[in-house]
């Protein structure tokens, strides 16, 4: 049937068909080019950020940045206390948030499949994952700081709240990838369910769970808004958790907007340190610990 109609087309129809085909191809090419341009624009933003940080940050990098505490403008200060404060609060935040996150993820993957409570927990956790971090700061302020004063532990707790949903998401996803036969093998050997989960499933999902924890650490290391209302920042050397505590993002926030040139320079150094730290953690998490599928 098609053979007869093909040969039966008048010349005008063939011409129209040719035009149509060309315009469809042209449209296809335009769409593809626009998509490539969109991707280049986004990559250009990333390149611009990295380039700006290097251009303005690397000049101020010196040993005193790591060995001296913050000083008044013009005092040749460093970033020792913000760096220490960031490390402490990030570590405590991750140490508190990770076990809770793993347990919630375990609950969702191993105990609550399909249950109403499980679905509610998963839904709320996913919403918290994207909730504005400034609200977490306000929440911890209202709960712990108001009336008691700013403290490093309040900052750490607000970071822990941010860690939990990130770890929940990766833990649940990774545990769901573990084949049922592994669990059955463990149970067949007489292991109780908790041993099957802890000794078999966690071990099999270790890479994925570690990825989640690394991503969570990378996320909270750069968080500013929640710390603003909880640990406040501290220009003096202080490691006590019940006093206001300095951190890199807060120091950057304070210094970047100041009129003093040496403070602005320090802000760029801090920004460079934190960005490259965070990006390195992300690359390790995404490339080195990539889950095998």
């Amino acid at each position, binding site marked *: 049937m098609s053979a007869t109609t093909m040969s039966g087309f008048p010349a005008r129809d063939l011409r129209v068909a040719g035009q149509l085909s060309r315009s469809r191809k042209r449209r296809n090419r335009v769409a593809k080019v626009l998509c490539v341009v969109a991707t280049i624009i986004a990559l250009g933003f990333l390149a611009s950020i990295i380039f700006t940080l290097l251009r303005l940050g690397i000049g101020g990098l010196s040993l005193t940045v790591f060995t001296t505490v913050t000083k008044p403008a013009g005092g040749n200060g460093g970033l020792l206390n913000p760096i220490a404060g960031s490390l402490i609060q990030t570590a405590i935040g991750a140490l508190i948030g990770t076990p809770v996150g793993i*347990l919630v993820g375990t609950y969702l993957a191993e105990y609550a499949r399909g249950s109403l409570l499980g679905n509610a927990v998963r839904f709320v956790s996913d919403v918290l994952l994207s909730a504005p971090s400034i*609200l977490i700061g306000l929440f911890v302020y209202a709960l712990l700081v108001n009336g008691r004063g700013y403290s490093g532990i309040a900052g750490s707790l607000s970071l822990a709240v941010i860690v939990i949903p990130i770890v929940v998401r990766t833990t649940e996803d990774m545990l769901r990838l573990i084949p049922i036969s592994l669990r059955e093998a463990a149970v067949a050997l007489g292991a109780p369910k908790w041993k099957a989960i802890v000794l078999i499933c966690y071990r099999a999902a270790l890479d994925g769970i570690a990825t989640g924890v690394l991503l969570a650490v990378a996320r909270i290391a750069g968080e500013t808004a929640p710390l603003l209302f909880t640990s406040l920042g501290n220009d003096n050397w202080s490691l006590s958790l019940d006093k206001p505590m300095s951190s890199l993002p807060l120091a950057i926030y304070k210094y970047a907007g100041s009129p003093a040139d040496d403070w602005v320079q320090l802000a760029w150094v801090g920004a460079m340190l934190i960005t490259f730290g965070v*990006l390195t953690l992300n690359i390790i998490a995404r490339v080195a610990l990539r889950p095998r599928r």
Partner: protein
Amino acid sequence: MAAAGFYRPDGTEPNAVSQSATTGTASAQLGRSRGSLGDKLFAGAATTSGVLVLVLLGAIIVSLFIGAWPAFRAFGLAFVTTADWDPVQNVFGAAVSVYGTIITSVTALLLAVPLAFGIAFYLTEIAPPLVRRPIGTAIELLAAVPSIIYGMWGFFVIVPFMADYVQPHVIDAFDGVPVLQDVFAGPPFGTGLFTAALILAVMVIPFIAATMRDVFMTVPAVYKESAYGVGCTTWEVMRSVVFPYTRASVVGGVMLGLGRALGETMAVTFVIGNSNRISGNLFGSGNTIASLVALEFGESEAGSLKLSSLLALGFILFVISFIVLAISRLLLRQVKA
């Protein structure tokens, strides 16, 4: 096809069918003898942690509401419609910052969605397989850059760029065009609502693009191959097969980006100009809920009406973003399941 499963040497297929029954009874019987206590403790700990997440959400809502109560009591519903933010006279309202939040977020989406769609299309259909992963990872890194870094970059790079190259020309270009000459007007200082929206767009692009890429991947290959088979171009496959199939989830991804944009704090604070007035034009300065809270918080005494008003702003932001994120999750869940 089903028969093939039964002859697989590892036997996963037939076992998978009966797994829930097997694990259930086996662990129940063994539990009584040895692992009973451990099982109960572990299940208890896991369930308690799960419930803790729900409690956390409840605690956030309740604590914000309690903190906001004095402001709500003093101003009533008018708090949302009042444009004043006057610490001297102790009159506070949310209208300006709610307006700024919505205008910047929606403008950001108008800029981000086409770009994110292009990136997702590129990564799923156009890019050579070898570069898909590196480029995808690079786009994801854009999401990893901390908010405050976007603020500094915006303030030191984008703001001068806007002031020197974009705003004067755009204002000239739209001069005399009805409506648009009012939208693209204002002092060409580089800061303002549009610059904030631009930074927000860069920040939410990776989230929207990653979601779109993931949902585009869920389209069965048979559908796409059928379309290619009848002679469709790549773009026609995208427009007529992939996009209709994933429409709900694409909207979910856009809502996810909106949820992110609504609550962004540090980046916006650096570039929006921070003035408490409703600006009809996009180059004018303004503020958002998050930027106002971040800026004013340090100057609020504990127990003051101002602090309570800030917590009330937080409560409003929470309600808005919760609704947006909840819609996003519901739309995205349909494809995942």
